[in-house]
């Protein structure tokens, strides 16, 4: 049996305003509320609302056999409430079907894991509380920001009550000859690991509307036949897991409605469920579905799902990114000493990984992706606003 595990990342950052040195000390709002509202309403209209509606219909039509998982960040939930409350309601209706798993992550979609363990654990706890409060859901599967993972993450998450599974990227340099279709264990065999099958996931997320791709157009029949093919290698009855992880904004935002992405999704579950050896599962189901001794995998270096390199270079490669993040985490410790909740809140909103992504200056193919997602003209501009905002934050700490 091959179980398709869909997990969709739902996230919106609080984008920083064009913050200038002359704005410092004036108690000005650091964030571009207008832009943030605009983006949220646009994405809700193009992606969240129509896709939620479609997925709800598909779950109902499949009588519970179609399953999906979401990871929804705290900053996204907050902005749903501010700018698109109907979106939050539609997610709640989806969770109420019982076919939707919610994953745990850092509330602020941050890189705190790499810089400040206590802050990381705080943000994980905040997110779990939020999921309980908003959806009445207790999370048991964890995904770190941008699927960043390394052995130490499993140690930390194992210590947090209730987490059994972590999802991450199926990076070739770790898997080598292995397939990401099996459920694995972390290096110490304490935590269940699920690895993204990036070839097929990226066919939907990145290549779907690319006319230069030889497989264009991607039809449901073609895609399901590829999936079918994957089951041929497994003859001893072991359960396989096809982990299709992607940004939720793939639907209608990265791949526009005119590309046919919604039609693809509409027909996908029924095509899969025609075949008795294919089905859908949630990440949490894998702990009991894994009917074999799970091999353990060690990740000595951090991996992620970003760019060709699948490492940290999208956020932490150039001097601007490093200077910005190091300065931010220095301020964190000073704010915590001072115990000012308002400043802590600002520092946390600045810890969202997107701010560092905008400063990425790798100008080849992946740089274009960064540019597409950035609200700023250049990485230098993104850095200038950010580092100036950190000067403002520091002045407030001293004030």
């Amino acid at each position, binding site marked *: 049996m091959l179980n398709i595990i869909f997990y969709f990342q739902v996230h919106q950052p609080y984008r920083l305003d064009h913050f200038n040195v002359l704005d410092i000390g004036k108690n000005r709002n650091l964030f571009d509320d207008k832009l943030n509202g605009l983006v949220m309403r646009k994405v809700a209209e193009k992606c969240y609302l129509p896709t939620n509606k479609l997925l709800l219909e598909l779950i109902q039509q499949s009588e519970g056999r179609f399953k999906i998982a979401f990871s929804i960040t705290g900053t996204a939930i907050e902005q749903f409430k501010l700018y698109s409350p109907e979106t939050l309601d539609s997610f709640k209706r989806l969770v109420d079907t019982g076919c939707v798993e919610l994953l745990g992550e850092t509330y602020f979609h941050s890189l705190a894991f790499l810089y400040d363990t206590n802050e990381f654990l705080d943000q994980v706890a905040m997110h779990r509380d939020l999921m309980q409060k908003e959806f009445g859901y207790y999370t048991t599967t964890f995904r770190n920001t941008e699927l960043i993972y390394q052995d130490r993450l499993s140690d930390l998450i194992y210590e947090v009550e209730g987490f059994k599974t972590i999802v991450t990227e199926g990076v070739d340099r770790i898997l080598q000859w292995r397939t990401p279709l099996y459920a694995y264990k972390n290096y110490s065999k304490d935590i269940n690991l699920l690895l993204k099958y990036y070839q097929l996931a990226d066919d939907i997320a990145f290549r779907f509307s690319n006319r230069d791709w030889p497989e264009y157009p991607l039809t449901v029949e073609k895609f399901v036949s590829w999936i079918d093919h994957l089951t041929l290698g497994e003859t001893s009855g072991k359960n396989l897991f096809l982990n299709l992880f992607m940004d939720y904004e793939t639907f209608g935002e990265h791949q526009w409605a005119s590309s046919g992405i919604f039609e693809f999704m509409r027909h996908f579950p029924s095509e899969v469920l025609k075949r008795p050896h294919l089905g859908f599962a949630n990440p949490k189901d894998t702990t009991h579905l894994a009917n074999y001794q799970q091999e353990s995998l060690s990740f000595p270096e951090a991996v992620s799902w970003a760019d060709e390199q699948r490492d940290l270079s999208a956020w932490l490669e*150039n*001097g601007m990114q490093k*200077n910005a993040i190091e300065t931010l985490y220095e301020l964190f410790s000073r704010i915590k000493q001072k115990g000012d909740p308002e400043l802590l809140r600002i520092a946390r909103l600045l810890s969202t990984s997107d701010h560092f992504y905008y400063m990425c200056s790798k100008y080849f193919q992946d740089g274009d992706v960064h540019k597409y997602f950035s609200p700023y003209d250049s990485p*230098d501009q993104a850095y200038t606003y950010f*580092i*100036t905002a*950190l000067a403002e934050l520091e002045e407030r700490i001293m*004030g």
Partner: protein
Amino acid sequence: MKILMFTWEFPPLISGGLGMACYGMVKALLAQGIKIDLVLPTKELVYFPMREESDVDTLPVIFLDPLMHKEYSRHKFETINERLEYIGITSQPQSYFSLKEIRQYAASVKKHYWLSEVVTDEEQDLWDEMTTNLIGDEDLIRKVQEYTLRADRFARTLDYDLIHSHDWLTYPSGMLAKQISKKPLVVHIHATEFDRAGGPGDERVHKIEHAGMTYADKVIAVSKYTAQMIMSRYRIDTGKIRIIHNAFSLPVDTVLTQERIFKGPTVLFLGRVTLQKGPDYFLDVADRVLKVHPEARFIIAGTGDMSRHLLRKSAAMRLKNRFLFTGFLNRKQVESILRAADIYVLPSVSEPFGISPLEAMAFGITSIISKQSGVAEVVNHAFKIDYWDIDLWAETINHLIENPEKRIKMGIEGMQEVNRIQWDEAAEKIRHLYSTMLAEYIRRPKN
């Protein structure tokens, strides 16, 4: 006395150092009863008839074409900027001619380059030098070409006693006007290509500078430093050169009271972020000072071709949020940043004059200026250091951070000193030069 003046900058829209200098100078000349027709790189064919002191702020406009002027007079404008937009002048003057127009115009101007009676071989050489070097397709060169082509119309239509051109961008226009009208020409050196480039620079610009200075009847240098530069680098006849230092007058509505942005000591670099201004020395100095005084903040106010390099280098040096960039600032914003600063630095590699330190000193900011600057000749209450002596810059800044009383005292003394450096005095010298030139012109031998 009526002057035809060509310049590339004039506030409020283009207010670099050249623009600010022209503003102060024109205003003071008007106060002396001199009339000036000002020609700027505008889109429309207009000039600015300056008759009274207040004209420098209201900028009256006349279209060369009477019909267009009639049309313009019927317009009601809310603000001066709206009016300036109508005549097409922006902070970065865009191309104001189509290529076709240039070709047609070039034909008529060529007539004057070539068909007019060229007196001597030397003179012919200067024309060749200017015209052959005013060829190119880069943005700036092209704009200067266009500006020059139009100078012909102004030179012919307007009535004037003398021509005054500021910096190489307008030397070709000055030359053309002199050729057409046979009136005397004075060129004003605010900076040479050696200063701007911080090295050899563009050969063509040097040639145009040389042609302009040689063709002119008199050359004004803004400092001794600049006079030495044009004698040694351009071999200009010493007898033609007059040194007239720039001055500085604060706009009347300027608010000087300090208004801090940062709690810690604030060190300011204000100006174009280009090699000439030495921003990379500022960065190295900041790095050294921050090791001793991590509470200080260093601000780069302005933009330029080195901005990105500096931004990335400051990040790579991990100067945290202690080295900040304001980007481009308008006039009011410049005043705000000046009111927030404790120490001003001008680490220029080569600065013919440098008005911005005078402005900083007028705000009572303790200033440290490069010895390689003209402004160092006119102020005493400022530290003067060789631009390359990074250790001494850092030591001086540390000393000023550690001794606030001394810093404040020096700031106040500097303020008093700068208040005495007024444009009236410089304008008086310029007026005197004009009179001498006119007398020589009237008494010139006829041939």
